[in-house]
């Protein structure tokens, strides 16, 4: 047998393997602006003609969401350590969002023009027009968990204990008293959400076995949802693989609590863009295609999963 036939056979096998990698779904190219989402044509609930409103899921959803004089939104950053490094980033991420909130609104952007409460650094206000043209007051609470960027220092600081306890309590209170709750933080492999310095294993790595066993964050979620008259109608969990980690508890509430969760691991800048995208879409009353694009933080496709929000 000549060498030519085995070589040709090997070439065909290699070509098949190459074609498989060519044709497999590629990770999507992420293209987005600094913080605001890049989307295509945006339709809002304001633009829906009167004759179509009764059947429009977009119009009906925002009518319900904005049915009260105030819309309460809570954005709560979990303790975003980068263990085994000492760096903790949520305090800075919160500030990046706040800088955007406090900017004046030069065009038709919606995530801007807020004023901060005089005695509460974590509460911001703005007035917008509802679908009935009457004013709605937006009360936006933005909290972080870390008191400094250094996890070793935070563990020694009594201010950290005070802040973590408050943030945990406010997360539960937000589910009960706010219309929209957005968590941006760690999933702790299903033991989150988490608002405190992490429990560590050896060599300063997070002890995921502890979180999987104790699941402290899930207990917080359950406590928030336990009071059956809770107000939240949308809960966003912008943390790694949250769709999988928290599906059990969220699926029991699906008829009354819409959710935004993550299918995959999520990079911090992407999660922050997803939060700003969600807020932009909610305040602008974007209909589903634009809303979906905004929460993905990129122009097409992504990892965020929206369930149960748009309905008649």
């Amino acid at each position, binding site marked *: 047998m000549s060498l030519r036939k085995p070589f040709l056979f090997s070439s065909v096998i290699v070509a098949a*393997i190459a074609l498989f*990698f060519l044709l497999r779904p590629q990770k999507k190219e992420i293209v987005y*602006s600094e913080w605001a989402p890049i989307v295509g044509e945006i339709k809002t609930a304001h633009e829906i003609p009167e004759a179509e409103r009764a059947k429009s899921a977009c119009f009906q959803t925002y009518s319900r969401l904005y049915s009260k004089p105030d819309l309460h939104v809570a954005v709560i950053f979990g303790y975003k350590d980068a263990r085994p490094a000492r760096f903790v980033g949520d*305090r*800075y991420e919160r500030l990046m969002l*706040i800088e955007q909130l406090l900017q004046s609104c030069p065009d038709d952007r919606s995530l801007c023009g807020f004023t901060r409460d005089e*005695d509460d*650094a974590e509460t911001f206000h703005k007035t917008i027009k509802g679908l009935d043209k009457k004013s709605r007051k937006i009360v936006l609470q933005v909290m972080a968990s870390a*008191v*400094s960027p250094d996890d070793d220092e935070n563990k020694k600081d009594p201010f950290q204990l005070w802040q973590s306890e408050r943030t945990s309590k406010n997360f539960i209170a937000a589910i009960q008293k706010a219309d929209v709750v957005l968590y941006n933080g760690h999933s702790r492999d299903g033991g989150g959400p988490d608002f405190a310095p992490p429990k560590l294993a050896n060599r300063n790595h997070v002890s995921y076995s502890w979180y999987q066993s104790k699941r402290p964050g899930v207990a917080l979620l359950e406590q928030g949802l336990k009071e059956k008259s809770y107000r939240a109608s949308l809960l966003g969990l912008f943390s790694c693989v949250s769709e999988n980690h928290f599906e059990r508890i969220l699926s029991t509430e699906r008829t009354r609590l819409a959710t935004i969760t993550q299918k995959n691991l999520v990079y911090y800048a992407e999660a922050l863009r997803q939060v700003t995208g969600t807020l932009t879409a909610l305040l602008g009353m974007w209909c589903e295609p634009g809303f979906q694009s905004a929460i993905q933080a990129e122009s097409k496709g992504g990892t965020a999963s929206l369930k149960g929000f748009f309905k008649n």
Partner: protein
Amino acid sequence: MISSNAALYVLVFLISQTVFADWVQTALRLTGESESVRRKSIESLRNESALEDKLRNALKTPRKFLALDVISALKMQSMLPDLIAYSGDDQSGATYLAINALTTVGNRNDVAELYKRRLLRPSRDSIGVTSQVIMLDTLARMKEPLHSRQVKELMLSPHFEVRSAALYYIRHLTLGKKVTEIEPAFLECVRHAFKSSPYQLRAQALALYKEYPNDVKSELSDDLAFCDSEKEESVRAACKEFRH
């Protein structure tokens, strides 16, 4: 008919275009994955051709956060001049975190001087509040001395987070010291925080009070009278917890 050599070349080319991810996909594996994945990603990035040019271009795009993570993870000292130049316009502050990652014993003083120059000039608000807070936090952790007049100015910033970072700076420079070793102006700043709005600043000052030794506490105890009329529930709880 295609020669076997040509076919082999085409196959190798096709495989190289599909199997080997670009720097972006590799960089995304620097966070959220296991330590071994992170180590392999770092190795792979070190072997990426023309990486510096790619990162320089990325700094001007929304992909800059990923580029900054790569520069930090690979400790690319050669990129420090680019970061310093770029940081002047970076409203997000993320560039300063990358500069911090590249700070060594050898360049520490230069970085501290750069931060002091930018933070203490009258036009500091042009560089963004997040950037100001990151620089002040860094000076705090370096225990870099600032003039007490400068710290007082920062305590009067119109931005709450800058005032909070100034109090954090004071914490770093005063903890572990006796009252005779602490600049009186710093204690004045703590007293000022007890009476300030928003309430989060009052709570932060209370927590700092708790950490002080008894002689410093004695110096400040009269200023805790505000606790008796404090309206905010969480600060009343902090008064109860930290005052005694």
